């Protein structure tokens, strides 16, 4: 049961990651995975490519803290979290989160918690090339609201 936390430019193989999660303890009968992809339309504009910037010295620390919080709260089995940086095209995979647990509730909630915190705390920034030129993506209030449900301070 060793977690995998990676920030990389390379693509990832969903089925290989799923199989790695399956190799976890047989006591864990639930696996939940989530993948995020580059959309063709965002915030009202057609989007071409995407550039993902990050703060390298802080990114790994931030992701480790989020994973540690999820584990402390739900007692999860194995956790895999991968986030890509650099140039990405429409349809490309951006992020993967996969967790195992004994039962489905902890796996669903743990995966959702990791994504909600990642979207509001991990130091990544997206710049899109749109029909109107390059544009930094603005943060969504709905992402902050999604995170707040875990702390109850909505």
């Amino acid at each position, binding site marked *: 049961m060793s977690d995998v936390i990676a920030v990389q430019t390379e693509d990832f193989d969903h089925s290989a990651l799923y199989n790695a999660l399956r190799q976890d303890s047989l006591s864990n009968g639930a696996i939940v995975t989530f993948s*995020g992809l580059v959309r063709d339309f965002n915030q009202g504009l057609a989007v071409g490519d995407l550039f*993902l*910037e*990050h*703060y390298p*010295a*802080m990114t790994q*620390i*931030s992701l480790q803290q989020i994973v540690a919080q999820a584990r402390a709260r739900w007692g999860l089995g194995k956790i895999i979290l991968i*986030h890509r940086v650099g140039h990405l095209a429409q349809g490309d995979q*951006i*992020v993967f989160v996969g967790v195992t647990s004994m039962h489905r509730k902890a796996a669903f909630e743990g995966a959702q918690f990791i*994504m909600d915190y*990642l*979207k*509001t*705390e*991990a*130091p*990544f*920034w*997206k*710049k899109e090339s749109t029909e109107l030129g390059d544009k*930094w*993506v*603005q*943060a969504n209030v709905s992402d902050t609201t999604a995170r707040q449900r875990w702390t109850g301070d909505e």
Partner: protein
Amino acid sequence: MIKVLFFGQLKDQVQTGSIEVAQSVEDVANLKKTLVLYHPQWSEYLSADSTLVAVNQTIGNENTLLTDGDEVAFFPPVTGG
């Protein structure tokens, strides 16, 4: 010496990715004042409510104390995932 980094849209707005501040500053608020002293045009970006700060790779605030050798990063709300 404090190393100051900028990320995301803020990096474009201040037109640099990093600078070094030689004089000693007590806290983040003090650092912002010093930066604005030399770059008055940065005031609106650094004082924006949405601008976040991390001190030594951990989220901080205006009152976070600084010591020589610290790394301070300013950035807009994050948009990964």
